[in-house]
Structure formats: structure tokens, C-alpha cells
């Protein structure tokens, strides 16, 4: 069967509050830490939704829109850069699973 790319997979996810232009991020990342002291920048590959990316200069960037609330980055980051909360039901993003 056809293998899906990650964007295709994330396209199947039902995110909350998609109509809202402004959402309150439930995860805050201090990318200063990622880009100064972190030896591995592991969130850029272990995150199952690729919310963490590296640009051409190797700098880490984070976006919360695609987050599927799995929790991986909260454990994987051992540098203290990730502040992780659950999304606010009204003004946050996060998921509603159709199957789960």
C-alpha cells in the first residue's frame, strides 16, 4: 500500500480550534537553550509530529500547531528547554482523536 509522508499523516488528525487565528501555545520551548548548549537537538527527530525543525544553519525552531499531545519532547529534552502543559480546551490547539 502507499506509504504516507508525515504531512499526509498529520492531515488526517482532527485538531481543535482550527478556525481560531490566535491560539495559546501549550508548549513553550526556550530555543536559546537548544541553539547554545544542547549537544543533540533530539526533538528535531524524535517528535512524532515534527514540531521541532532545524534550519539550514542548524538552528532549532518550534511550532505548536501540529502537536498531537504525545508528550515525547517533555521526556526527550534533557536540557530543560521544554515547558509542557496540556492545551486549553477553548483557546489551545491539541487533538480530538476519531479512533484513538
Amino acid at each position, binding site marked *: *500500500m502507499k506509504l504516507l509522508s508525515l504531512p499526509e499523516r498529520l492531515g488526517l488528525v482532527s485538531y481543535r480550534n482550527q478556525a481560531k487565528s490566535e491560539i495559546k501555545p501549550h508548549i513553550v520551548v526556550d530555543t536559546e537553550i537548544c541553539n547554545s548548549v544542547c549537544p543533540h537537538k533530539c526533538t528535531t527527530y524524535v517528535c*512524532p509530529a515534527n514540531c521541532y525543525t532545524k534550519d539550514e544553519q542548524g538552528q532549532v525552531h518550534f511550532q505548536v500547531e501540529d502537536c498531537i499531545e504525545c508528550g515525547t519532547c517533555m521526556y526527550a529534552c534533557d536540557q530543560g528547554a521544554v515547558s509542557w502543559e496540556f492545551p486549553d480546551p477553548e483557546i489551545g490547539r491539541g487533538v480530538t482523536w476519531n*479512533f484513538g
Partner: protein
Amino acid sequence: MDEKFDCIIVGAGVAGLAAAMTLARNNMKFLLIEKGEFPGAKNVSGGVLWGSDLAKLVPNYWEDEDGGWDRFINHRRLTFMDDQSAFSVDFKSSHFNEAPYTGVVVLRSKFDRWLADKVQEAIDASDYAMDSFIAPNILVEEVLLEDGKAVGIKAGGDEFYSDSVILAEGVNNLLTRQVGLQDKYVPADHMLTGVKEIIRYDQKVLEDRFQLNGLSGMSNEFVGYATNGVEGGGFLYTNRDTISIGLVLGLKDLREKEQKPYDILNEFKKHPVIADTIRGGEVVEYSAHIVSSGDKRVMPKKLYMPGLVVCGEAANLLMNAGKAIQGMDYAMRSGIIAAEAIVDAKKASDFSEQAMKKYQDTLGNSYVMKDINNFQDAVHLLHDPVMTQKMPNLICDFGRNFFSIKNEPTPKSRDMLRGAIKRHASYWDLMKIGAKGAKAL
């Protein structure tokens, strides 16, 4: 709300719902708070709910035409993989065909919602039909503490008071950390990232492909090539007209080997044996979730404090000891035991630390902690690279030779095995694993 509840439960997953059912049946006044749009909306599992506790919670659940569960398991398979081959231990028996079943496959968005409806029925039949609530779409921000005792919760800026709090918030247990029962930072060492796809088929195709009859189902676990060198394993479960297929990947190992979970999932799906198994379907959901490994070192040492207990995955009650990945059944049993401790505390008007300790004592004497304690060596063994790498390669190498008919003189199986061991491991590896295995299992 000025009213005080007997108990506030945080989280409408399997643990929270089992606790709520038990409280409702015992005429307790409680509030069950869930952050998702509905119970199950944010919950992900593999997943098989093992054992028969569900029948205690919802008697004759199998008679419910549109029950929340998908299929009962009467067919188990454990598969060792290398890059080309799959060598399986396969067991199917009509012994498992009779209700109450010993394992049902569930999809949590559907199952938890169904179970919540059953809890609501129990609330309606209780003395507090108008005073106990299941409240979805509310995020609990913190547990309220007074003099070291839990007295309620804060959510959406409002405070709700209760004699007791049951934390059933799941593996990402932020409130368990807030009250100090879990470290603020939990390292990756004993955590795994699960990734999963739901693939849909024509139901007839699915039933024919997996030899399903009526609502029978199959569970298949995988070790070896499935995880592309990362510690962990794969799974495939049959639902009504979909399959759940995925991987659980040791997070520390994933970090060290610099691999992406979704890439490994595609490699797994591309494996010739898996590709044949899943061909033709349509992916309808991709999900991911953290699970704990069952290693006791990650678990909170204490699951109680004055006025509060922790159950389910919030207490890291999950284990894969090689036979099955158990978590939801532990959640269910721990939720029931937690609620029973609260019922006793209410009768005695005593929600002290000593009263809450009864929960952990009872849990300690139940199969949940007995199994977790007894099978720690098996958990360690399963995370040994010899088990996840060398063994599957060795087994598949042997299989390839054993099942090859070449019109040449055939070597004895013993010699084939010796060759396979030489190519993939050593007798020393096997002796160590054998000794560990004999002790562990």
C-alpha cells in the same frame, strides 16, 4: 459551585472511568473531569484490554450490540523479524471464544465514550443522580492543597472542593508532579514513544485476510527488524473494519540512534511480510503517545497522600513482559481499588494519609503489582539488545535454512542452529539470555 464532593476524579480514561463506576455504585457524590471534548477524545492505546475485569465493571458487556469494544482476541501471534523474514509463534484456540473474553481490542475514542455512558447510567441509578457529574472539556490546572492535604482542584479559574482526589490523568502526569509524588522532570530512560496508524478495509476483506469469524480478532506483536535497530517492538491488532498497526520505541535509544519514529513506521510497513499483510487498506488516522516501560524505577514510589491517590498510567502502571502489553487492565483494576479505598474512607470519615495508604496496600496485593514485581527481570530482558536485535536475526536465519528444500543433502537441524548462532550471536550471549530468561519468566 459551593457544594463539596466526596471525590473529584481527574481524567476519563480507563482508570478514571473504572473509579467513577465504582463510586457511583457505592452512592458517592463525585465529579469526573476530562480535558477532551468527550471521554476518550484525547486517549490513545495499542490496544488490547486484557483480562476479564471489564465484565465485572459492565456485566454482560458483550451482549451490548453496539458495545464500545471492537473484537475479542482468540488468536495470538508473536513474530520475530529480520529484513526479509518473519518467524512466528502462533496460537489460536476456540477456548477463547466464550464470554467473558480474556482480551478485547478497543479504540479509545469509541470505547471510553461508551464506558462513560455506562458510568452515567450508574450515576442516574445512584442517590446522587443530580449531584454527580461527568464534566468534559475542562482542563484541571492544579490540585488544591491545604496543610499538605488535597482538598479539591482548580479548573478554568474556578475552585472545586472535595474530601478526596483521584488522579487518573494518564502518563503525562503533570498533577502527580505538582503534588510532589513524581519528579518534576522524568527522563527518557524508561519511556517509549508509541506511533500508530489506523488502516481501514472492507470488513469482509479484513475478516478473510485475518481468518476472523464473527467478532473474533487477532493480536500480533513483533520484535526485531520492525523497529530498525531501536529497542522496542511492533504490534498489529484487528478492529471491526480497521487494523491498529504501530510501534513502541525506546525513547532514549531513539534519541541516541537519531531516528524518526514515523520513518521507522514506514520501514516496518514496507517489510515484505508486513506489506503483504496490510495491502490495499486506507490509512484513516495517525497518532502517537508516550508509554512507560514497566520498569519499576520510573514509577512514583508513593501513590497516595492525605486526600489523594494516583492510578492508571499516571502511576506508570504498564508492563510488557513478553506475553502481552498490559496497561489498560492495570488502569481498570487500580481505578476500582482506588475508588474502593475512597468509599471506605468516606464511611470512616477519614481521608488521612493512613487511610489513603490502603489503596497502595491493596494494589500491592493485587495481580497488578504482583506481576510488575515478579516480572521486572523480563522487562529488563526485553530491552536487552541481544533480545531485540540478535535473537530475531538468529531465529529468522535458522527458519530460512530449516524451511529451505534444496535437493541437496540436508544438514541436521542442530547444525543449522549452530551456524545461525555463529552468524548472529555467540553461545555466551545465548547462555546469558537463557539464564536470564529462565529466571525472568
